[in-house]
């Protein structure tokens, strides 16, 4: 167990060093959400009316959450590339704790997500978003976002362990992330959606985290009758716990017996 932590830290350092040599690696959690903030704030914000509130206050939690979900696609691509380049085989031939390869990677991903949150928060403040309820709820919201990012990164790891090419990872990432973050209350209230989509959106884990953040940052929270929308913080915690409880062991299991074709 001691080695598991030490080895995870060694692997995490590897991924954090990547940021220095490959700053574009952070674009998924920085530039893309920043573009979303400005684009939605000034383009859609001019047309979308949020009942009882300000669109920018409504928008920022959505962008935060979407960027956390997007990070799972980048970790998926990282896993696929490590498998294709033989780096995974090298790790697996070492007398190290094997799970550390994955835990270190998701840990580093968490740090990247944290940097992304800082970048987005700064942009949010520029366009007029304000956390209104004080320090504790604001930090709680950031903590919830990181937890969601961590949970989603395990989904990305698990999916990545089944893929053979980075093109596949890109395609799957798109197919996974788009519906997850758009069939949700991320950018528009769910009230106007067709009944089936609205039901999916209201139970989508993304929506739970978005609503929880809207509550914790303060501002208008459009009413939705579904249970996860009535208890968003609890629902978010349950969703994250469930995702980690499912995908962490599944990923480690898959990694231990992942055998490439030759």
């Amino acid at each position, binding site marked *: 167990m001691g080695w598991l932590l030490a080895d995870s830290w060694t692997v995490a350092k*590897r991924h954090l060093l990547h940021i220095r040599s490959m700053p574009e690696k952070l674009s998924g959690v920085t530039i893309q959400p920043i573009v979303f903030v400005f684009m939605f704030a000034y383009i859609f914000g001019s047309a979308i009316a949020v009942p009882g509130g300000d669109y920018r206050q409504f928008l920022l939690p959505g962008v935060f959450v979407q960027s956390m979900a997007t990070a799972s696609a980048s970790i998926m691509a990282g896993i696929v590339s490590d498998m294709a380049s033989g780096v995974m085989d090298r790790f697996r031939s070492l007398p190290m704790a094997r799970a550390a390869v994955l835990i270190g990677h998701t840990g580093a991903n968490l740090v990247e997500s944290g940097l992304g949150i800082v970048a987005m928060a700064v942009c949010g403040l520029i366009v007029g978003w304000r956390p209104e309820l004080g320090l504790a709820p604001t930090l709680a919201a950031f903590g919830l976002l990181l937890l969601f990012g961590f949970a989603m990164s395990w989904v990305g790891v698990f999916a990545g362990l089944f893929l053979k090419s980075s093109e596949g990872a890109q395609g799957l990432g798109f197919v996974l992330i788009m519906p997850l973050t758009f069939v949700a209350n991320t950018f528009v209230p769910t009230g106007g959606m067709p009944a089936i989509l609205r039901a999916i959106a209201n139970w989508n884990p993304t929506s739970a985290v978005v609503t929880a953040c809207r509550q914790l940052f303060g501002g208008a929270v459009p009413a939705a009758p579904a249970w996860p929308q009535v208890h968003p913080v609890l629902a978010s915690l349950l969703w994250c716990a469930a995702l980690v409880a499912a995908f962490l062991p599944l990923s480690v299991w898959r990694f231990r017996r992942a055998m490439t074709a030759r």
Partner: protein
Amino acid sequence: MATAAIRAEGLAKRFGKTRALDGVDLVVEPGTILGLLGPNGAGKTTIVRILTTLLRPDAGTARVDGFDVVRQGHEVRRRIGLAGQQAAVDEYLTGRANLVMMARLYHMPAASARARADALLEQLGLAAAGDRLVRTYSGGMRRRLDLAASLVAAPPIIFLDEPTTGLDPRSRLDLWAMIEGLARAGTTVLLTTQYLDEADRLAGRIAVIDHGRVVASGTPDDLKRGVGGERIDVRAPDADTLPAVRRAVAAALGTEPTLDPETGRLTAQVADGVAGLRAVVRELDRAGLAVNDLALRRPTLDEVFLALTEREVAS
């Protein structure tokens, strides 16, 4: 009897319908180099993956330094180094950072990890490039770094899967010298290769692999004797003189040469290459025939395989 460094018995593995390994037996004595020689898809990499605990065999057993690769994988991993077909190093780290990371994963303390990385960079001629990102390295430098990574823990047994495939001749020679140095220092090496000359130069013993089986094994000399010595190649300048050249070669050597219709090259197998070559030159001179190409060469891997597999079919 001392424990063999590597002992495999009856290894079998199938992938779907493909029988990748079909009963492989191998023994490698400590401090020696075994070359696994075979074409792509023969099963060489599968053997390496099983012996390095990356793949479970469907049947058979293998022990590395006395430890079972399936049941005692962790003990095996503490005693081996692996350099795979690709240079499995991190492009976006420096050479030094790659080695330090490896050393830390072998659970060396931070200070010894750094010292070990420095020593290996020095040993493999990468000291000046140690602080550059690996993505700026040439192919040869990457392979050397990859070899360094497999040597971090100074393992008694290393596995090199096609270590020189894709390298330029100079880098290839460098890498050969390093592998020879390892064996001199007492490391057991199992290397796979598609090149007869590589196996010939490095390996004390060679196992020829084809279709997942060991079709022949022995010292390089054993194998070459087995496939019948050297070849003389002759190319006639044009189709008109070809029959005359062919008759001259047959007369000189007392054996009918084979003709490759695509290149127009005649090839004859000879027991004594130099004597055969002189006889062919004399005969061509006497007949007043000019030729485009006249060469004495060792059998190619293709010919070794053809000879070995033909013998199998015959027996």
